[in-house]
């Protein structure tokens, strides 16, 4: 009997189609479809399916199979999965035969350091910390890439945060970030030195330049990763990210093309210790593009309330509801947000009261957020609000009503009067963060 597809489970990822050695599978209208005439029951598709939508036995037969497991002597059954030892053999062999792009050697983990308007994005250093682990798991070197104008002080920092080698392109053309010269610079370095993995923060800049680089290199890119790992057998980079509005997590592989590229959300990886005085090899290259060749000019930069601008990408959010009672009390939560470097948000009620603008609103008719930490102050937790924030990693709620709906989704619920609780929280956070910044 050919492979059976459970259409309710199929997510249409196509893994089975690629895997099938006899081309018996195809995607039709987004779900896997089996050509029974071609299917040779190899079962290779069953093992790769991420959602367990494929099976070699008809559904109705499944309960009977379970019973067998429970007791009766087993007879040889060709449809059963291979014994583990055989599976492992198949896997390691597959890994050996996986071709590297161009047949060349691709080696090293690279972190692209984000430096723009005189600021270094902290996510760059977080990635050096994470990159260390990946490089160790593979057994290769960890490098930083710095592109910009007058970046010598950045090089020192990159070594301090753990880079073994730093590639530098220092050119006035790279003064302000623009896609074309930056993509050209990074692509040139990659082509010349062939790293296996390159990572960058999932910031406005990373999400702009990395797709351009991946397109030029014709390789795969996984955006907004929250977990990275190395498969111990294949040494492939396992790139895990939220998908479908944070409703599921997906682990993505780039099996055959190189380099493997990811952007990583800021503040999900731990910041490594800074060690003064470390150094290493510096490799300098020339920028290939001249100003005349660049089609874009930056006319003006208007520093602004950076935080509310990217509410949906914020990593710490302090949100306020009608429990705050009046507009002038907002200073309480503003101070709390400042102490954490957090972004301020609010409920629909607060917007309708005219205390804050609509671009701060979280929930069904506002923005859906998924920060690492969501602190809800004086928010009762109407379902319309919860759907916009319930997938946050940690939720801390302050409310004086023990029955408040927000407590049902909170990791920590503080039952108390917010006018007493919030100033204490602010003071406590300030105390602990006086020598640094949050996350």
């Amino acid at each position, binding site marked *: 009997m050919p492979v059976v597809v459970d259409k309710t489970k199929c997510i249409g990822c196509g893994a089975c189609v690629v895997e099938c050695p006899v081309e018996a599978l195809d995607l039709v209208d987004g779900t896997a479809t089996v050509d029974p005439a071609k299917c040779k029951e190899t079962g290779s598709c069953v093992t790769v399916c991420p959602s367990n939508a494929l099976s070699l036995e008809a559904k109705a037969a499944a309960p009977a199979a379970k019973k067998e497991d429970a007791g009766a002597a087993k007879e040889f059954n060709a449809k059963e999965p291979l014994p583990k030892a055989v599976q492992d053999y198949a896997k390691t062999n597959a890994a050996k035969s996986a071709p590297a792009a161009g047949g060349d050697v691709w080696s090293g983990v690279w972190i692209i350091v984000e430096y723009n308007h005189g600021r270094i994005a902290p996510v760059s250093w977080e990635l050096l910390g994470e990159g260390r682990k990946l490089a160790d798991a593979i057994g290769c070197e960890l490098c930083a890439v710095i592109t910009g104008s007058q970046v010598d002080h950045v090089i020192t*920092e990159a070594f301090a945060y753990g880079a073994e080698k730093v590639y530098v392109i220092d050119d006035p053309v790279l003064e302000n970030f623009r896609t074309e010269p930056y993509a050209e610079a990074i692509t040139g370095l990659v082509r010349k030195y062939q790293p296996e993995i390159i990572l960058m923060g999932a910031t406005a800049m990373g999400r*702009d330049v990395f797709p351009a680089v991946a397109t030029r290199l014709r390789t795969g890119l996984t955006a907004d990763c929250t977990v990275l790992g190395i498969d111990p057998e294949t040494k492939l980079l396992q790139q895990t990210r939220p998908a479908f509005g944070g409703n599921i997590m*997906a682990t993505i592989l780039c099996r055959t093309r190189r380099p493997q590229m990811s952007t990583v959300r800021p503040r999900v990886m731990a910041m490594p210790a800074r060690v003064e005085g470390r150094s290493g090899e510096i490799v300098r290259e020339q920028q290939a593009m001249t100003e005349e060749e660049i089609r874009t*000019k930056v006319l003006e*930069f208007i520093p602004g309330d*950076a935080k509310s601008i990217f509410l949906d990408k914020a990593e710490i959010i302090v949100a306020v509801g009608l429990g705050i009672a009046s507009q002038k009390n907002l200073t309480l939560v503003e101070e709390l947000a400042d102490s954490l470097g957090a972004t301020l948000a609010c409920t629909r009620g607060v917007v309708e009261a005219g205390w804050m603008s609509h671009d701060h609103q979280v929930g069904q008719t506002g923005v859906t957020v998924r920060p690492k930490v969501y602190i809800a102050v004086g928010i009762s937790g109407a379902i319309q609000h919860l759907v916009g924030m319930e*997938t946050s990693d940690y939720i801390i709620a302050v409310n004086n009503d023990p029955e408040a709906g927000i407590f049902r989704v909170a990791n920590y*619920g503080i039952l108390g009067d917010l006018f007493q609780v919030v100033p204490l929280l602010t003071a406590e956070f300030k105390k602990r963060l006086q020598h640094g910044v949050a996350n």
Partner: protein
Amino acid sequence: MHFVVCLKQVPDTSEVRIDPNTNTLMREGVPSIINPYDAHALEEAIRLRDKMGGKVTIVSMGPPQAKEALRKAMSFGADRAILLTDRGFAGSDSLATAYILTVAIQKIHAQEPIDIVFTGKEAIDGDTAQTGPGIAQRLGFAQLTYGIKVRDIDKASVTVERKTEGGREVAKALLPALITVEKEMNDLRYATLPDMMKAAVYEPEMWDAKSLPYDTAEMGLKGSPTSVSRIFPPPGRSGGEIIDATTDTKGAIANLVEKVFQENIIMVHPAVKGGRA
């Protein structure tokens, strides 16, 4: 001037849920909508056409059912809509999708030269924000992402205000260019009844893989370097602990903050030299 808008029909992700028992997506009954960012991209293209004269062409890749999204898009007042639909396109990741769209846009460009391609900043079902830049690179157009305002436009250039970390940036690009659009760029129109009626009977052009010079190795599953190896529900929250701060408020808060730092919910970053973005 000629404006092309790339538009995607997506499941309304606010209604997608995962079945906790089987780890599978529950897609049944989830309505399909026009990707919200793409709607704003379309709105901007139409406003610019109304100001500058010219034409708006919509192009979309998807199953035949995506025709409905294109019809709806036509009611905004676009001039032409093309649906790229082929079984060979299925399973494309963002690299392959950008390829498929690019080849089609090149054909459109050959028919009538394009000044600006608009896309949404990202699609809400994938959130990758890669297809727009991918198209810009392949076409060799200037790329302006996260656009929030078109400040100025003439026959040769466009000036756009865009969101970046830390503020807004005003950038000017020579045409042709590709702009990805945030929701703030404009307010969507409420189509007039005559436009609704025109759209209701509009038949989008359907292009399949054979109608264009596609290299099959670059599209669909074969042309997609990335593949999903596993899906699973997001990690559930650990506790749900209620801390009573009604009596000893100070003690309770100190206690909580201690936990928050111990569990690495909030981490201390040493102050970074050169400031932080």
